[in-house]
């Protein structure tokens, strides 16, 4: 049963995400039509915000994995690094894509190169893409792991920077609606509930995703080790 835990997480997370989508599109109340250019498009937030939340969790795992490999030479740390990059890429792309859809409807443009939040988050996603593609292009070895772990460590600087970006420079991306303090934005309880279900579902899903990813990396390493033994190496 313990071997099935990742699949269980993935399944529960998937059902939760689908429920979030259903509730967000059909049950949650609409926003004020005066405050938004395109009020209906706002419903994509029930996808956008939880996926961004899950992306931050994945980038956090990437940071921890990179640090464990870089400073402790921990194979477990490298597996965390790989899982964090893959999950970060998946969630980052979901966030960027949904943000672009909303931006196109609300702002009239899917992207703004002068908005700090958009650019730093976009770069985080590109960093994850770079790490995934880069790792596939290189033979596994200490040189590869050291280089990509360094990128993982330094890249994490962007996470707090992205988080505070809208608090310092609010250019296009809206400011925080949760945890913004007394004078910040506020959400109706039903909206907050759907967002909460979304955040929980994405979190469970991404944990399952990373556990499976770590298992696959472990199997890849065992396969490579077995091949080396067949080649006559150590």
């Amino acid at each position: 049963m313990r071997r099935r835990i990742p699949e269980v997480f993935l399944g529960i997370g998937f059902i939760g995400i689908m429920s979030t989508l259903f509730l967000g599109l059909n049950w949650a109340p609409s926003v004020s039509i005066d405050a938004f250019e395109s009020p209906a498009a706002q419903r994509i937030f029930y996808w956008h915000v939880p996926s961004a939340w899950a992306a931050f969790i994945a980038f956090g795992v990437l940071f921890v994995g990179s640090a464990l490999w870089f400073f402790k030479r921990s194979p477990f740390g490298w597996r965390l690094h790989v899982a964090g990059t893959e999950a970060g890429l998946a969630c980052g792309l979901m966030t960027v894509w949904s943000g672009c859809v909303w931006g196109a409807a609300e702002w009239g443009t899917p992207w703004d190169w002068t908005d700090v939040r958009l650019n730093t988050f976009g770069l985080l996603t590109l960093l994850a893409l770079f790490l995934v593609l880069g790792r596939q292009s290189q033979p596994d070895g200490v040189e590869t792991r050291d280089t990509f772990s360094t990128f993982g460590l330094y890249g994490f600087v962007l996470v707090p920077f992205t988080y505070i970006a809208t608090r310092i420079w609010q250019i296009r991306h809206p400011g925080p609606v949760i945890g913004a303090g007394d004078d910040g934005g506020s959400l109706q309880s039903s909206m907050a509930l759907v967002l909460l279900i979304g955040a929980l579902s994405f979190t469970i899903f991404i944990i399952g995703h990373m556990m499976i990813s770590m298992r696959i990396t472990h199997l890849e390493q065992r396969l490579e080790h077995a091949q080396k033994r067949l080649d006559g190496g150590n």
Partner: protein
Amino acid sequence: MPASLLSLVDIEVRRGMGVVLNGFNLEVASKDVVVLHGKNGAGKSTVIESCARLLPLEKGSIHHHGSLVVDSEGRRSLAKHPFGLTLQSNGLLGDETVENHLSTVCSLSGMKTDLLPLLDAYGLAHRRYDRIGQLSGGQVRKVAVLAGLLPAMLSPEPRLVLLDEPATGLDESALAALSLNIRQLREAGHGFVIASHHPEMMKCATRLHNLESETLQEQPKAQPWQAVGVVENISLLSTRTGHRYLRSTRAGIARNGLTGLLVLGALLAFIDPVSLDKPLLVGFVLAAPFAAGLAGDPVVYLMREQRAGDWWRAHVNRLPAADFFAPILGFILSGLGSILFLDAFNWKLSLIGAAVLWVTLLCVRFIELSTLRLARPNAVFIRLLLPILILPWALVVEYTATL
């Protein structure tokens, strides 16, 4: 007791997923010729490259002339005395002339000499002014070997020489010259670490080392080498700023210059400048230097040839880079852009364009150099990270439009 030229203290080096050297110790003193002769993959080249500061250490430290040059804590210092280095992959740029490369080696040693007799001994005198790219494989190897021996040939003080498979590709006369030079230089007090299986090189050894144990070997007396160098501090500014490489290869024009001109041309092809407002026009003017900067440092690009960058990295802390070329090209491209889009030369915009290209190039260079340690640095998708430069560029454009 002879002076210690090199000491490796309990070093551990990993390559790929394996530990190549584990707890390895080596002491090389004046008049030592240590020939490393283990089987393939035993770690001979790893020893040479570690001594040249090219590989990070997992454990231990390496000292040249008693001073730390690299250790497992990440400390990396320049060797206080010049040393000779011949990499297995030569480390030469095809666009340099033979004379240019050897003169650079002399300059790094703070000396000069008449190169002709040295070149003559290796049958290269007639190739002195030829580009390395025009030479045969064997001749290129001779240049690399001679460049490795030069710091010792120039100096009356003991120097360390690291040679990785120096005999590979050499003809009989060059091999005889190399053996003779090694014996003469050893007699003059210089120390060698040579990775080779070649019988001729093994005959030169005072210590044969198979990376586990070593055997001492007596050497007959030889005529000591008379140092041929004259102390002269020659500025390496032209080389370190990449000017010399860019002048001979025109790589800067080919990569960055043409990229900038193509962007200008493309913008002009479909857009009528008269119909646009000022911020957009400023953006168009500064787009050319920005794109030229994104093309990357042309000198770093050249340095990828035959691991020339590694050869430089062993000797200096900062690789040659297009430091002068970048702002000049940025100034020219922005000046041209301001004439085309704003109908008049704008010196302020040109200066900002120079800064844009220089800073962009600096960032791209930093990102590219950070992947040099990878097994296949050209295969990595490093340019995926460059969009981060668009935001500061856009902010510069916005600011410049207000001037």
